[in-house]
């Protein structure tokens, strides 16, 4: 009984499998594509996170285009200068070094500094919160503090600390994937520098309104503008901005800043310091 059903089943399936196998074999020979081994090699050097910072959707595509065009201006911000050297060695040409950048939060509105407007109980996501109202903090330009950007960071460089996004500078590779995700636009990219001064505030409210909402807000008091000898600070729409190209990092602005929590921040990018020395 069993063998009656068994033999035709096995043999017919086997025949089908054999026929398909032969077709696959023929197709793979007939339509074989010769792949450049250098693409594979380049691909193995790349970080392999497919973050999209280079402008291509994947590392593999970056490698393909790079090998094909030999364009030495193409850079991988994540790999940094080290990778540029390695790529240059592999391809036998001088590669441009990427600008070392890092993401920066233009807000210091932690829960103990920024006053809150209302308690938000809805979906814990910044975009969802902005559908309901202007944000749980009184300042509507602030970091909403629900961490929608964290999921977009491929490098685990972002975390939520007391209602504010904090970026780990050592982990941030400058891929800029987080920038378009923020509904209030408090995330920006900055070039790494040995000493980088910037205004960590995003509030375009008038001074009085800013002060009422947050202890760390820039009130556009003009003090830093007056003290700056390099004319590197400008006030635009009730918010100071430090022009990075002009700033010589003398640090005088931080001394005169009258806000309770300095709205001017100094950050040192260790990698950049290493290169300078």
């Amino acid at each position, binding site marked *: 009984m069993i063998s009656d059903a068994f033999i035709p089943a096995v043999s017919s399936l086997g025949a089908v499998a054999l026929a398909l196998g032969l077709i696959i074999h023929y197709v793979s020979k007939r339509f074989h594509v010769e792949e450049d081994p250098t693409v594979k090699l380049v691909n193995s050097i790349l970080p392999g996170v497919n973050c999209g910072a280079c402008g291509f959707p994947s590392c593999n595509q970056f490698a393909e285009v790079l090998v094909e065009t030999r364009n030495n201006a193409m850079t991988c911000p994540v790999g940094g200068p080290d990778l540029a050297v390695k790529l240059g060695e592999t391809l036998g040409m001088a590669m441009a070094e990427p600008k070392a950048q890092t993401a920066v939060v233009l807000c210091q509105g932690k829960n103990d500094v920024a006053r809150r*407007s*209302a*308690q938000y*109980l*809805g*979906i814990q*996501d910044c*975009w*969802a919160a*902005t*559908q*309901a*109202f*202007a944000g749980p903090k009184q300042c*509507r330009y602030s970091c909403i503090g629900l961490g929608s950007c964290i999921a977009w960071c491929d490098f685990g460089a972002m975390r939520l600390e007391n209602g504010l996004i904090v970026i780990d500078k050592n982990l941030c590779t400058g891929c800029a994937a987080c920038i378009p995700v923020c509904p209030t636009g408090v995330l920006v990219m900055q070039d790494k520098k040995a000493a980088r001064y910037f205004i960590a505030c995003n509030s375009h409210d008038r001074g009085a309104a800013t002060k009422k909402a947050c202890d760390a807000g820039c009130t556009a008091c003009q003090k830093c503008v007056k003290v700056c000898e390099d004319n590197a600070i400008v006030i635009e729409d009730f918010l100071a901005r430090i022009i990075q190209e002009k700033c010589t990092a003398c640090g005088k602005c931080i001394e005169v800043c009258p806000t309770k929590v300095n709205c001017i921040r100094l950050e040192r990018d260790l990698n950049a310091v290493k290169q300078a020395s």
Partner: protein
Amino acid sequence: MPLPAELSIPLSQHLGKPAKPVVRMNDEVKKGQLVGEADGFISANVHASTSGKVRAIRPHPHPGGQYAMTVFITPDGKDEWAEGLNSAPVDWKGMSKEEILKKIRDAGVVGMGGAGFPTNVKLSPPPDKKIDTIILNGAECEPFLTADHRLMVESPEAVVAGLEIMASLFPGTLKLAIGIEANKPDAIDALQQYAVPKKIEVLALKTKYPQGAEKQLINAITGRNVGEGELPFDRGCIVQNIGTAVAVYDAVCRNRPLIERVVTVSGMEIARQKNISARIGTSFSDIIAFCGGMSEKTNQVISGGPMMGKAIFSLDVPVVKTTSGILFINNSALGKSRERACIRCGRCVEVCPQGLAPWLLANVAQLRQLEKIQLLGLANCTECGSCTYVCPSGRELVHWIKYAKALVSSRKQRKSA
């Protein structure tokens, strides 16, 4: 209610582009004077709701949840009308179509049910669409709200006249109907007196939510289905709110711009629940003071109804043309906890008036699959909130759907930019 110490009149009280301010700081304005001019086709005029001085024009919290450009007026206490406004009732029958539409546009009349669509635009459908039915929505959009109910009982004459004015804009004989939920017999009686001689049907509808939603109302009265992506005029219908009809009457016959509206003040936590006729720009805190204050247990103040309204984040927000109600509630008794997993009970599918599967929409929204969610009929959701209300797992279904809508539209904007 008494004149408040300050009025804050947002320039965006309607769907479409905000109005352009036409006054400047320290200007003297009269009651009913234009302060914001319609900027573009889908936009509406905004008027001063009392006489006084413009103190400032700057962004201010809006009941919609965001900040909007707002004209602050310090009243001078005289409450003087601008010239030519607030005239004795005139007969509209001699007026031409264009004249009537211009008057409605000048008066800044918008849909007062909640969406705030400029009425003159709604009344000028594309010429290839034939309108055969005009419906007045007396179904009261949401529970708690009774503003339209009061209006129907107190000024049925104006309601009927408003409907007649709107009907005169279209050629041929139209079916005119006023749909009222059956739990308002006094409103039905009051309207019937005026409506029946004018061949206007007053229909008692089953009391249920969302009976007052445009698409549901059309279906209940004409049996027609307004499909996905269609507007009422694709099915020959125009639906207007009761408040809008009165505003149209005021605009056409009495030269009064829309500077006042009936607001339902309700909820367990306010001392005196009532319907008040509030000037546009009256802040919520002034209304609270007028209604005897809110209790300390209040933990949500909602602008609009309990289903679709928005919890406001500041008591400084003003009454706008679309503020149908203000609710003061303490929802801690509801024991709102975090969202739990969907148990596939199907209740949200059962209650969805649009025949969607809210649980699926919410799941797909959570995964941010924006292409797929559009295929599931995202645009068809009217955000009535029935699904969130019945969900035994406490899922924020509507909020997820709104979230997806926002992401879809922001992506479209980015693409077109």
